[in-house]
């Protein structure tokens, strides 16, 4: 089944237990279920229009950290995931995971995702669909938290600030990159809140890249404009 050649790669990075596997599972299987700690890495192929997108779920454990660079090699998009109730998980993104993306494509797109929003946000908690509750069956699945259960440690502004720092790290010009509002999400794999939005937005953003790659492969020419663009960006940042 998974033998089709992917047109583009997307990688989900983040500390263990932030919910990477759950997010992917929610998007692909439309369900939230217990996950076992990801070993090494796993991937799914998603048909998106005429394209096959491979989505890599990575292991957040320190032990597998070294594999991250390899997973990111040639990635068109990286989804950096943290847990909104865990400040450290955001810190880790910058300290530990960002450098893994050095092997990604130079025009790689970044999304920053604060998962487990259901724990702090009533709207995210209520996003659960009727169908979902029915299939959960038990009463526990249907109850809404009367008030947020947990303290929110990461605010959206923190994620936006990180996004800007990432652009700087990558030496990407702000105005040539997607805006922070479009690329910072708060999601809940548990209720499905913003999950489709996240993946579909990222997919839509990588599609032009696929097209470009295909036409380049056909005409087999070097895109001079792209190179000069890169140079300008780098100069701009160093100054």
């Amino acid at each position, binding site marked *: *089944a998974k033998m089709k050649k992917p047109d583009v790669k997307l990688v989900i990075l983040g500390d263990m237990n932030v919910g990477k596997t759950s997010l992917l599972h929610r998007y692909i299987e439309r369900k939230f279920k217990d996950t076992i700690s990801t*070993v*090494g890495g796993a991937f799914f192929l998603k048909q998106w229009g005429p394209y096959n997108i491979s989505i*890599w779920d990575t292991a957040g454990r320190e*032990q597998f950290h*070294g*594999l991250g660079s390899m997973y990111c090699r040639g990635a068109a998009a990286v989804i950096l995931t943290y847990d909104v109730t865990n400040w450290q998980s955001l810190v880790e993104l910058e300290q530990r995971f960002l450098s893994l993306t050095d092997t990604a494509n130079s025009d790689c797109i970044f999304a920053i995702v604060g998962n487990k929003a259901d724990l702090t946000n009533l709207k995210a908690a209520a996003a659960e669909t009727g169908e979902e509750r029915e299939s959960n069956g038990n009463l526990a699945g249907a109850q809404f938290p009367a008030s947020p259960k947990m303290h929110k440690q990461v605010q959206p502004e923190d994620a936006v600030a990180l996004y800007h720092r990432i652009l700087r790290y990558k030496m990407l010009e702000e105005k040539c990159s997607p805006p922070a509002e479009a690329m910072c999400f708060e999601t809940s794999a548990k209720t499905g809140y913003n999950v489709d939005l996240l993946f579909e937005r990222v997919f839509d953003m990588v599609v032009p890249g696929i097209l470009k790659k295909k036409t380049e492969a056909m005409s087999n020419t070097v895109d001079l404009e792209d190179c000069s663009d890169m140079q300008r960006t780098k100069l701009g940042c160093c100054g």
Partner: protein
Amino acid sequence: MSVKAFELVLAVERELLMGDKPRINIECIECCGKNIYIGTNDCFLHHFLLEEKSSSKGNPAFAAQKQLQRHLGLKKPVNELKAASALNRLIVLCDNTIMVVNMLNLEPVPSGAKIKGVVTFTVNENPVNGDPFCVEIGVISVKKRTIQIYMVYEDRVQIVKELSTPEQPSAIGLDGYFLCLALTTQYIILNYNTGASQDLFPYDSEERKPIVKRIGREEFLLAAPGGLGMFATAAGISQRAPVRWSENVIGAAVCFPYVVALDEGFITVHSMLDQQLKQTLSFRDGHILQDFEGKVVLTTTKAVYVLVPLPLERQIQDLLASHRVEEALVLAEGARRNIPKDKFQVMYRRILQQAGFIQFGRLQFSEAKEHFRKGHLDVRELISLYPLLLPTTSTFTRSHPPLHEFADLNHLTQGDQKKILKCKRFLISYLSEIRSTEVANGYRDDVDTALLKLYAEANHESLLDLLVSENACVLMDSVPWLEKHKKFFALGLLYHYNGQDDAAVQLWMQIVNGELHDDTRADLYEYIVDFLTFSSKQDLIWKYADWALQKNEKVGVQIFTKRPEDEEKKGKLNPDNVIKYLHKYSQAIILYLEHLVFEKNIQKEKFHSHLAALYLDRVLQLHSQSETPSEELSSSRTKLQNLLQKSNLYRVQLLLGKIKDTDLKFECAILYGKLEEYDKALHILVHQLKDFQAAERYCLWASEDKDPSYRQRLFHMLLALYMDPSISNDALVMAAVDLLNRHAEVFDAVRVLRLVPESWSVQLLCPFLSGAIRESMHSKRMSQVALGLARSENIIHKHEKMKSKGGPIFLSEKKGCQLCHNTFSEPEFVFHPSGIPIHTHCAAKRNRESPSRRQYPNVNNHT
């Protein structure tokens, strides 16, 4: 969950190799076709032939035959062995030296070709240089941080390249130009042609033995931190998710779609398709695991084993038997590339069908449906699970071996009615979806009959849609079923669809009559009438029309009055027969005749007369019933009058005979009018009915579409009646004055003025007079206009004529007459028909001389 993917079979037993010598161990092994070569720690090379055979139970088994053994002349173990079968050589690593020996006699090649200082080596199975008479090998040298590439020929070796690496390499793989190396702290890919290197991932080779295993074109399997088996391509990316091994893996190999790994106690089998551990075999003292041409071979230090893969189909069937649908499908899909297309398709479809039934058994209907669809399931397999649904005529038998383990629906649901209902609902939606697709081709009868039964049982509204559209329901089977479920109306539709209209109507009639109960349609009676109306079967119509008319004449007669327009072609009902038939239905026959006369516009005297007579009878009947005029009476009279006035076809005399002696005076007057006996008609209106307005209207009606003098005559006739000196009274005089004043333009004014008595004042007749004058002025002016128009038309014609005669003629003293050739001295001339001027006297003279026709000289001769 586990699956039995492999079976471990002993291939070369210890006895054959070393007997009971305890210190001898296997060091390395090579398989090549049926040949097995084994290197031992006592510097021996052994050669065996391995025959595969089946044991009595059908399990795989091997018989090894010792061919040869040879001592290599050193006191060191034989470390590595690789066959170069095209060269008929074995490449042997012993005591850090590669030597080349003959595959058959195990003798070193006479040239004594050697490579010294080798730690380990690998053969490039995908060399860029495709020379079949040499083998490319990659070597880790004893020299620090050095890799060498050699070409090995039949009896010589040649170095191609030497590269240095940033760290000490300890394991090597080679494909194309790409070296995959385990260095001290990481794995890298190194292109020996360009020197470009690509880091893969960190790995501590000192802590744990690295594994580099080429598994296909530009793809390697590597031991990764945390006991992972990682896949990496030459481009430095991972295309497959890693598998999880134990921490101490000694060797690994790929036997599609499985990754097989060996550690100290076990052989593990992971699927490359879903990364799951599929099988674990206990294996003590494992030493080597290697794959040769798809065959996985293992050794302990003493004996050789083969890991024989079970046929894929058997594995899939095992998975299905334990209801592991997803895994079975993944495995089947994964095998697509390894099995011929048509064979694969047959196998895969069957697996999909089986998967569908497993899901069906779990009531996972949408998944089941998808698999049935993809697997091209013969729907009868599914229908046959439902008792009694397949028609008795069906030739279907379930496929063998069976696709599932269910006897029927009751067995599947354990009699749970709720579940049975769900299954039925699913089948309804499934069958209705596929019945008009090619899935149902060849057994539409079975599908439609099953659907009919399900619909009937479930009281489903689509039952009727099924029956009124094209369907293949088997009559014999459906009739008792519909009867059982009291779907009599539907049964009628089924009869009709099968051409048995008589049975259909009979059945419906019984419902209407209350003999059968089925309230599908509240308006069934109207439905039957409609049915008969659109039926082209005359005997059916005649048979049931009586029943329909007896129930309700007004509705029943529609059978005859609402017949489709295009009936002509199919042989239409003869109106005379219908009339004869409707004789006993007083209301129906009138409605039918009205239909013929007014709607069909049939211009036949007998219909018109008949209708008029029926109207008249009705009026007379109503009239005799009550003295005071009822609403019904007046409407009946209006109808009668209307017909009498509008139609010119009925037999006037006949009706007049009937009417004359009744007090239907007005109708009488109309009839006189039809006979053009206007005096009688007007007399009735003026003197008997004294209805002057009616008289006036009558005159207008009777002269409609006639020329003005006809109207004038009628009006004068009426005026004369009013002014009859013998019965003069004031009312008549007033009527006369009113008539004149209102219709001044109709009368001949002069005649009227002669008639008018002296005593009438001008004022009294003022409107008449001015009207008459206006009329005469009007007609005068109209004739002047007409005259003027006629004149101008005449002029136009003249102008046309002149134009067609040609332009002016120029005459001068220089021009001569064509007859006498003298010039003209006076303006008069005669225009000769041939278009030339001549003297008047010449023309006269000529006419006198020759009255007969003569040729004139041609004008052209004189120009």
